[in-house]
């Protein structure tokens, strides 16, 4: 099943991982060390983040470095911006409706 971006971001450890790799790409081993976690625990988090495309792997020799995918986060923000726009449109419609009703009552 494809991972949900909301679920991915709602976990504090995964947010910390994202914050860290936004600064510098890391290998799973380096992440495990920084967060004092087992390799298995890190792998689980990586899997979730990778599945919703918030991070992307890059091979360098034998190592895999994970990068932060800023584009995906931007996509998410674009969705929210559109959601906001829809509300703005609706509320402007309500402004008009309220003033019409107030006029009628006069």
């Amino acid at each position, binding site marked *: 099943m494809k991972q*949900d*971006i*909301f*679920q991915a*971001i*709602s976990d*504090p450890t995964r*947010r910390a991982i994202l914050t860290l790799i936004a600064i510098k790409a890391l290998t799973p081993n380096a992440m495990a060390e920084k967060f004092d976690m087992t390799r298995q625990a890190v792998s689980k988090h990586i899997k979730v983040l990778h599945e919703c495309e918030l991070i992307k792997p890059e091979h360098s020799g034998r190592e895999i470095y994970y990068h932060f995918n800023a584009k995906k986060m931007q996509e*998410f923000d674009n*969705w*929210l911006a*559109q*959601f*906001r*726009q*829809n*509300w*703005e*449109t*609706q*509320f*402007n*419609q*309500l*402004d*008009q*409706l*309220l*003033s019409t*009703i*107030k006029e009628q009552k006069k």
Partner: protein
Amino acid sequence: MNNDLLFDFNVDKAAKTVYITREFNAGLPLVWDAFTKAELLDQWGAPAPMRAKTKYMDFKVGGRRFYAMISPDGQERWAVQEFTSITPKTNFKMYNAFADKDENRELPGSDWNYNFSEQNGITKVDITIYNESFERLEKLLEGFKIGFTMTLKNLEVLLATLS
């Protein structure tokens, strides 16, 4: 329309919650009605060119509103709102979920909390939306997008006619 009226829109991604605050230039009883009466909700409850159509609404605790957002080409996106708490002219809460045209709900939905307060003839409405998943939020927008794409298409046709 009214630029001095407050409009706040904040998203707490970690808490999966959207916070919306808006002021309206009208008294509380009227604004409360606009949010809780079907005949008024249908006049503003979908962003144009979409429109809202309520099939039925039973505004009481445990009651439901079954309604659709309809795009300009007639596509209907049905949803069910179930009212879980009502304090007249102060607060109401509901659980919102998409549904098919026969009212079968697609879970999970989202939790909505509305607060109303009035000061000097201006009514403030605070809305909190808790979404279990982003996918759900994406779906909310899907319907809107259909409407928007249609508008752009209409515009293209119009421009082609004019040129």
